[in-house]
């Protein structure tokens, strides 16, 4: 953990910044700064918009079968941004996300995440950079035989987090997404919205720099979709950069956030306060 993120805010500040609906922090003797403190601490000290979480410079991706998925993509996403990634199926959204988590490598150009060029990243460092990204999918990708709590804890356990740090971290993110009461339930006992909130809690538990949400509302009805969007917005307010790929035109148009539109592997539009469809 970088030291600059470990500074705990004063208790009063913490109380002031408590979000509506969020449970009060448990009385604890744990002197380490909690995830929530760090999230809040960063909300106070950061984000610094002059610092980019993500920079893509002249990125192209050609697959071995000859298909070109991305062409000359230039993007800068500053810290604290909330960005919609839109475009028809096959426009290259999924490929772009795969490049960001270094599941695929760019054929040409640079992908720089949190100051690190992914192409030059040694293989051993790949898991570490992935812990700076929280990823959320349309199909939730929860483990059916594990409870909500275990699903979130899994992300910490498989990255070698000491057991004594797992419990408080999981409890805090579950409280943040409002699933404390459902902690012992299995995914099959949850509604779609609750399953997606579990997935978001899992994405948050590593205290990421960037949340990538790939069609997070694709399987949900409009009302629940709004709940998920509200949750992502709240997480964004806590200082986490959010990149959300979506087909949900209503949401994009209503929120007037930054919109990046892809078509045939090119960025055809990148505007702040944009809508889902071209306005001109």
């Amino acid at each position, binding site marked *: 953990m970088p030291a600059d993120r470990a500074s705990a805010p004063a208790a009063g500040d913490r109380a002031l910044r408590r979000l509506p609906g969020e449970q009060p922090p448990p009385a604890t003797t744990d002197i380490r700064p909690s995830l929530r403190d760090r999230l809040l601490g960063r909300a106070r000290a950061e984000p610094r918009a002059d610092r980019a979480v993500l920079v893509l410079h002249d990125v192209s991706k050609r697959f071995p079968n000859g298909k070109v998925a991305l062409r000359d993509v230039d993007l800068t996403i500053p810290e604290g941004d909330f960005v919609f990634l839109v475009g028809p199926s096959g426009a290259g959204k999924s490929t772009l996300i795969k490049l960001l988590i270094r599941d695929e490598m760019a054929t040409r150009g640079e992908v720089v995440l949190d100051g690190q060029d992914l192409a030059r990243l040694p293989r051993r460092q790949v898991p570490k950079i992935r812990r700076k990204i929280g*990823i959320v999918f349309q199909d939730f990708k929860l483990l059916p035989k594990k409870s909500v709590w275990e699903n979130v804890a899994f992300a910490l356990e498989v990255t070698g987090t000491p057991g004594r740090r797992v419990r408080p971290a999981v409890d805090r993110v579950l409280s943040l997404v409002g699933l404390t009461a459902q902690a012992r339930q299995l995914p099959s006992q949850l509604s779609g919205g609750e399953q997606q909130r579990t997935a978001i809690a899992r994405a948050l538990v590593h205290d990421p720099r960037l949340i990538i949400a790939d069609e997070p509302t694709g399987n949900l009805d409009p009302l629940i979709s709004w709940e998920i969007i509200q949750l992502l917005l709240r997480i964004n307010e806590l200082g986490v950069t959010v990149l959300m790929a979506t087909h949900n035109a209503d949401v994009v148009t209503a929120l007037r956030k930054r919109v990046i539109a892809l078509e045939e592997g090119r960025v055809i539009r990148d505007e702040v306060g944009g809508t889902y469809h071209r306005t001109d």
Partner: protein
Amino acid sequence: MARFVIFSLRRAWQGFWRNALMSLAATATMVLMLLLLAGFWIINTGLLAGLEYTESKVNVIAYLTDTITDSQLLDLTDRVEAMPEVETVNHVNREEALQAFRDRRGAQNEEDLTQFLASNPFHASLEIALVDASLYSTVRNRLVGEPVVERVINQRDLVDSLLTVTGFLQTAGAIVLIVIGVIVLFIIVNTIRLAVVARAEEIEIMRLVGASDGFIRWPFVFEGALVGLLGAAFALGILAVASDQLGRFMFDFFRVLPLQLGTLTRDVTTLVLATGVGLGVVGSWVSVRTYLIR
């Protein structure tokens, strides 16, 4: 590090039971293959021991002249015994040779015709056991020069063919063992791969949340080792139960045996355990490789 090992072992145990049917199928395959391997090893060992025994029985037989004196016999025996190629020397006098012939006839229920002979037709002989059957010709050449030796029996062909057979069986046995090993490896890799594929979703999530290769790989490797260990334990259990029958069969079939059962038991146990665990580990390692970071 300790946490990593505990994590991996716990996950291996969970993984084994979470997918119990698949794990038991892999274990059963392992048991069958290990039994096949152990069975082959035991038969091969028995065969080789039997051959070795036969090989040691190949004596040079030097028939002596009937006029040999006791001092000549003693002198010859001493000199033959002193040869480095010679293991033991056994003197068979004429009466013993006759008796041995009568015993053989009697054992075959044949009529003893020698009682009608006026005199004993058998020659006294020296039966010489060699250190190594391939040294036959050296010893023979020296004996031929002795005046009191009437004839040295030419067992050359028998010795040669025996050596050929022994060599062939040793080579063939090694090849068959290797082939069985490779087949077992393929079957085990395939079975474990099924278990890994069944958990592909879990592995994908592990990769996405930033688990390092070790955290993904080692639980499966331990699980494979567990399958190997269990398979070996079952196979050894079955062998232990069957060992009495097996021992009797070995004795009946190979007739011998200077076969050291203690050594054989130790060898088979080591072989089965090492192969089981080794195959489990290698199988998992290979199966999980495709899921790691590219």
